[in-house]
């Protein structure tokens, strides 16, 4: 019976994991910098939806581009790390992206 670290990840799967992980963190970073006036304007792609529209649009476009680049660069490779490594990267990136957003919310409003 193989362990998680013995299961090798192919290039195409690594492209998915890497692009998804980077985008998860990017969403958090874009949320963090959204209050900068010039970035705020740039992120208001569709004004009625505010910065949500730009954060969504730019991060998903980045995701697709990164995935395509990763796929083209890694598609022939049979081993690009283990499933354990990529799973840790994926889980951590989801946690980091979520925590960056949560850390920048107005938690003080709970006590108003």
């Amino acid at each position, binding site marked *: 019976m193989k362990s*998680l670290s013995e*299961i090798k990840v192919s290039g195409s*799967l690594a492209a998915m994991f890497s692009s*998804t992980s980077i985008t998860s963190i990017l969403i958090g970073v874009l949320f963090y910098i959204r209050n900068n006036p010039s970035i705020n304007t740039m992120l208001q792609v569709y004004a009625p939806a505010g910065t*949500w529209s730009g954060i969504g649009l730019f991060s998903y476009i980045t995701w697709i581009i990164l995935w395509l680049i990763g796929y083209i660069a890694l598609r022939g490779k049979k081993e690009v790390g283990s499933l354990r490594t990529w799973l840790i990267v994926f889980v951590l990136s989801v946690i980091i992206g979520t925590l960056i957003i*949560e850390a920048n919310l107005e938690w003080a*409003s709970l006590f108003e």
Partner: protein
Amino acid sequence: MAMTFVEIVMLLHGFIASIALMAATLLIGVLMFSKELSAEDVSKLKWISVVTAFLVFVMDFLGGYGYTFYRVRDPTSARSIILETAPWAHEVAFESMEYVSLLGPLIATAIAYVVWHYGADIVKEPAVKRALLIMLVIGILWGLALLGAGVIPTRVASVK
């Protein structure tokens, strides 16, 4: 009283969230209790995971549509009422739901891709099964937390 179009959209938004969580739970059930899958079963699971990922995109889009009504700068909008009565329900709960949910399509697509990539190995190979179970459990817990965050502001004032 007849529902408005945006109320129907928001109802669909919540309905799709529930469907996605149920699909993820179904996949966990299959992983936990199946020793082997036929080619037909694998094909069904692949399509269920892909359709679920697509539905999560649709759910996000519908949420964004409702968001444009929610944040209207008008004293009668849901956002204005919530900020007046329970600011934290907007500042913490709603903002969490709206922005963190942008990660939803990423998680759902990653799960669908793993199911598609490994096929029958998701039940045959214990390590792959474990990896997928971890992703599904995280996806479900994350989704339930956001569902909870979404219900709080809706109880104060809903989008109309």
